[in-house]
């Protein structure tokens, strides 16, 4: 019986092994089929830098995907149909990157870290610290690198123009010097965004809203802080932006919160100044992300 088992096992293994081998030979197309597109054969190892590149009219040949989504961000997905997915930013697919033979690699310092030599071996690497400066600075820096400085300037100008408009709409709706805060409802916790990216610069710098009490106390190096519902009234916000995660549990959590007496007692609720916004593009701190968010804000506040 033992002999039989051994024989069967080895046969099965051999079959499995040979099957695997065959698949591989089938896939062996010559690499480098893609034609080198001048200047635009770049790889981006940050979803935000990908969207900055898109803003300049450059479609990266390869880009990492959103870690949780396992896909490109929804608001730019249709622009990235021909872009190769390079896995999540925290663990990019090195082989796919190498296969692209990119002319340059754009990466976020946060994820590059110690391994930067690995990437330098493949192509010149441009490292960005996304916490430094705003997306305008990143966009202009990229513009310089790819010789599209003019596009970068235009994009920023366009954005500032729209921002001014939206700022007017908001002032009209909320009054001058109104205090705002942004929160995010997830299945397990309630978060308040601080003044750091992604929400801080958009609301408080661009739209000129004043951070509600306590928003400034959130660690400036962290995007958010977990709070309990009970402290919401202490923020005394005139307007609240609410990001609700897409999953059902988070939606249920938000519904429960909406029915709580604390929520109903909030000043912003009473004045109907609560705005539910989608996580994307609002949390995508990039040129395109903020531009689309601004478009949405314009819609929200012109409706009122």
């Amino acid at each position, binding site marked *: 019986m033992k002999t039989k088992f051994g024989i069967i*096992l080895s046969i099965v293994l051999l079959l499995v092994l040979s099957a*695997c081998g065959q698949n591989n030979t089938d896939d*062996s197309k010559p690499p480098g089929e893609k034609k080198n597109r001048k200047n635009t054969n770049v790889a981006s190892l940050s979803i935000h830098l990908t969207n900055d590149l898109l803003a300049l009219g450059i479609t990266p040949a390869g880009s990492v995907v959103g870690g949780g989504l396992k896909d490109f961000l929804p608001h730019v997905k249709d622009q990235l149909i021909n872009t190769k997915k390079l*896995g999540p930013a925290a663990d990019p697919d090195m082989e796919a990157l*190498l*296969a692209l033979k990119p002319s340059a690699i754009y990466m976020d310092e946060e994820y590059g870290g110690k391994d930067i030599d690995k990437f330098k*071996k493949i192509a010149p690497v441009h490292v960005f610290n996304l916490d430094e400066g705003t997306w305008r600075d990143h966009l202009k820096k990229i513009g310089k690198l790819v010789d599209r400085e003019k596009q970068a300037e235009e994009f920023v100008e366009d954005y500032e123009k729209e921002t001014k408009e939206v700022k007017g709409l908001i002032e009209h709706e909320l009054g001058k010097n109104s205090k705002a805060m942004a929160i995010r409802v997830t299945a397990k916790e309630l978060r308040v965004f601080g003044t750091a990216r992604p929400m801080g610069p958009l609301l408080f710098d661009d739209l000129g809203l004043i951070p509600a009490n306590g928003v400034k106390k959130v660690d400036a190096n962290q995007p958010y802080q977990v709070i309990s519902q009970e402290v919401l009234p202490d923020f005394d916000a005139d307007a609240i932006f609410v990001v609700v995660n897409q999953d059902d549990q988070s939606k249920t959590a938000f519904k429960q919160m909406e029915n709580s007496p604390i929520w109903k007692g909030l000043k912003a609720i009473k004045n109907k100044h609560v705005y539910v916004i989608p996580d994307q593009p609002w949390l995508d701190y990039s040129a395109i992300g903020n531009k689309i968010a601004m478009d949405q804000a314009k819609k929200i506040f012109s409706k009122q």
Partner: protein
Amino acid sequence: MKKAMPPDAKRAAFVSILFIVISIASILISLNTGTLPIPPVKVIQTLFGYGDFTSTTVLFDYRLPRILITILAGIGLGISGAILQGLSRNPLADSGILGLHAGAAFGLIIYVTYFHSLNEKASLFIPLFTFFGGVLAALFIVLLAKDRFKGILPIRLILVGIAISAGFGAVTLFLSLRLNEDTYLFASRWLVGNVWGRDWIHVISLLPWIFILSPYAWLQSKTLNVLSLGDSVATGLGAAVQKKRLILLVTAVGLSCASVSVTGSIGFLGLVAPHLARRLVGPMYQYFLPLSGLIGLVILVLADMIGRSVFAPNSVPAGVVVAAIGAPYFLYLLAKTK
């Protein structure tokens, strides 16, 4: 030639050679698998130093270190499982079930929290941290599973192990959750057996543990044979039961915890490999211990290959692939031993 070998030894030699061949085959196939297709001929060319830039980079920088890690860890987990099953005289023993991996995870989180930002050389000490975590878990298990009169009770060993495993796992996740999101993600990926070690430094950190402890365990085959007969028989045969058991336990902890330090908590491998080996060549340790290591190697190399290729571009942790095969086998064993 000497006298004909005993049939057991002959059989063991045959099966071992067969598995060495299978191992080499699976390593070659694994080397050939990846996002970037490289023809088999080129793989062999590159291995002998005649590759171009692309194939050399892919093979030597990306694939080979990872495969070597799964090879070493597979051997380590297979052998440690074999030792633990003998020591506990329980066919359900495995370093994961006994809670050693959870202990290792605890050690790893301490490393990640306080030393991860240090320079690359610090990676060499990772197995040391997981080892001490594992020893800590083993200490708890032995203390709690010990009966004052009867010594360590095999049945209790497993139950206590499961409890310790859950406890340490909870503490680890809690700690990592309190630290920051990245550490938490890392820990939760690690706990399902994600081969995260990708660099030569991780190979080097793992190498001495496996190269020293595996031959040592094999040399102790006779002791293991005797110990698996039960304490009273073993004592009667003149073995220093308590002392030997302690040394071998530490060996098993060293092998398994060093292995999982870079591969993540791979469950069931230490359970399945010794079982298959025992079925193929019988219960004598001198025969089935090395085979158990080889089977561990084959399973882990193939599991990691499947995990990173079949579900591409999203990779599945090797531990999940192993568990997908190992869990049904475990249930089958449970049903059969009743």
